[in-house]
């Protein structure tokens, strides 16, 4: 469904991705592990069209998408939940959600269905729907960021460190929503520092180091063999 083939990405003159190849099948949850600064977030940004790959191909459902504008990619079914959440702080919770609903083909019934779904998953968002996004707590903002992505009815969600800085209770809620999305058939490319959560949620895991994929294995193998995790992540 999504395939990166030997992708190179630069920020100005600094070479961040040195030929990354990753594949995600429809409905699959794939983990992307690695230390800070190895290019995990840049990989997601490259898929989302936020940064342009200078070399290599990004293919989504058989179509070359490398260099396409993010708003076209959103309409193709790719949603991005960035690391820093990037809530529209001055927009209310409801308006944040509406940014993903004002697109062609969303009927009134569809709208209600999508909103009801996130309000069931995240009841706190229903309570705070009229509140400005910037006034929410970190965990609530994370939920809003995920809920906002769900408004696009994506085929794949690029989820960047969703549990970073969250209380354990919130972490449980995030892993629950990942499960729910998976059951609904949404593919997820999950970037995380939380290794146990990633190994539990994903079917396969890629481990990155210095802008390349160093290791690729089924999550079950890594759960059984902790030495590899230790070797690349030092934990």
């Amino acid at each position, binding site marked *: 469904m999504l395939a990166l083939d030997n992708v190179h990405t630069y920020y100005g003159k600094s070479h961040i991705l040195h030929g990354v190849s990753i594949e995600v099948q429809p409905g699959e949850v794939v983990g992307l592990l690695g230390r800070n600064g190895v290019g995990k977030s840049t990989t997601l940004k490259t898929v989302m069209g936020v940064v342009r790959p200078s070399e290599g191909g990004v293919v989504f459902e058989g179509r070359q998408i490398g260099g396409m504008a993010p*708003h076209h990619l959103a309409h193709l079914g790719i949603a991005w939940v960035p690391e820093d959440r990037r809530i529209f702080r001055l927009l209310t919770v409801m308006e944040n959600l*509406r*940014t993903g609903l004002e697109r062609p083909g969303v009927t009134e019934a569809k709208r209600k269905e999508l909103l009801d779904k996130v309000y069931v998953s995240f009841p706190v968002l229903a309570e705070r729907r009229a509140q400005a996004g910037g006034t929410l707590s970190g965990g609530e903002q994370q939920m809003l960021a995920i809920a906002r992505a769900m408004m696009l009815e994506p085929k794949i969600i690029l989820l960047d460190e969703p549990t970073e800085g969250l209380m354990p209770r919130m972490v449980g809620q995030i892993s629950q929503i990942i499960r729910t999305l998976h059951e609904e058939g949404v593919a997820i490319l999950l970037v995380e520092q939380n290794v146990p959560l990633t190994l539990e949620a994903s079917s396969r895991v890629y481990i990155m180091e210095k802008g390349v994929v160093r290791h690729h294995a089924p999550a079950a193998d890594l759960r059984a063999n902790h030495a590899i995790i230790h070797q690349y992540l030092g934990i």
Partner: protein
Amino acid sequence: MAIGFEQILIQTVNGIVNGMILALVASGLTLIFGIMDVVNFAHGDLVMLGGFVGAVTIASTGNFWLALLVAAVVIAVFGAVLQATTLRPLIGRDPLQTILATFGISLVLQKYAIWQWGPSARRIQEPLSGNFAFFYLQYPWYRILTALLATAIIGALYLFLRYGKYGIWIRATTQDRVMAQAMGIPVPLVHTAVFAIGAGMAAASGVLFGPLGGVTQNIGLDFTLRAFIVVVVGGMGNLGGSILASIFISLLEAYAALIVSPAQAVIVSFVALILTLLFRPTGLFVPTPK
């Protein structure tokens, strides 16, 4: 010398009327700056072009309201074309490049206006002539009407931004261009649309101002400068701040005109600009940044 209570009251009304026209110009400027980080130095020239288009329309139809509408629509379309051809390729570049580009546009528009309409001032016939007695003055009703119309247009803009689908697009894009685009909002189109809205509002100000000051090819610079002052004083990109600052600055100038000559009174707005930049560079009418 003693300043009478009537004089203060008259200058208050004058300040508010001038402030509302200025607010109409400045809200377009601040909207454009907020969303694409472009200081449009040709903004005042869009006011001027709007004034001429209005004057020409009135000359052929005699209808002020039609002229207001035609000028706003024509200049909005013109603004969209201008943005798409000249500014879109420059977005995200060094601000100096967009400043130079809009400054260039400003010069071209002025030269075009003098070539097309000549150097003499065109006066637009006001739709409402009468006066009313205001202390020792016969105060023109049209000035009051101007302030009300400007308020109505700004109010409509506010409602559009607050509740409309495209209003949410514009506010989301203003806050985070990249995230807005990742949510499927066609950001380049939003930029063009906002420039068109700002240009249309500038043109409407030009027509409203026409009966008061006349339209010449060189009124643009003055509007740009004054709008720029209030946008800085109000907080760059902050719509509410710009509107408050327009009234604030115009009132300051109006009161200063009680003491010094109106030409000298302009100085107080520059003083306000400098003091704002020195002591509160984020703007007077924005919450203190955390």
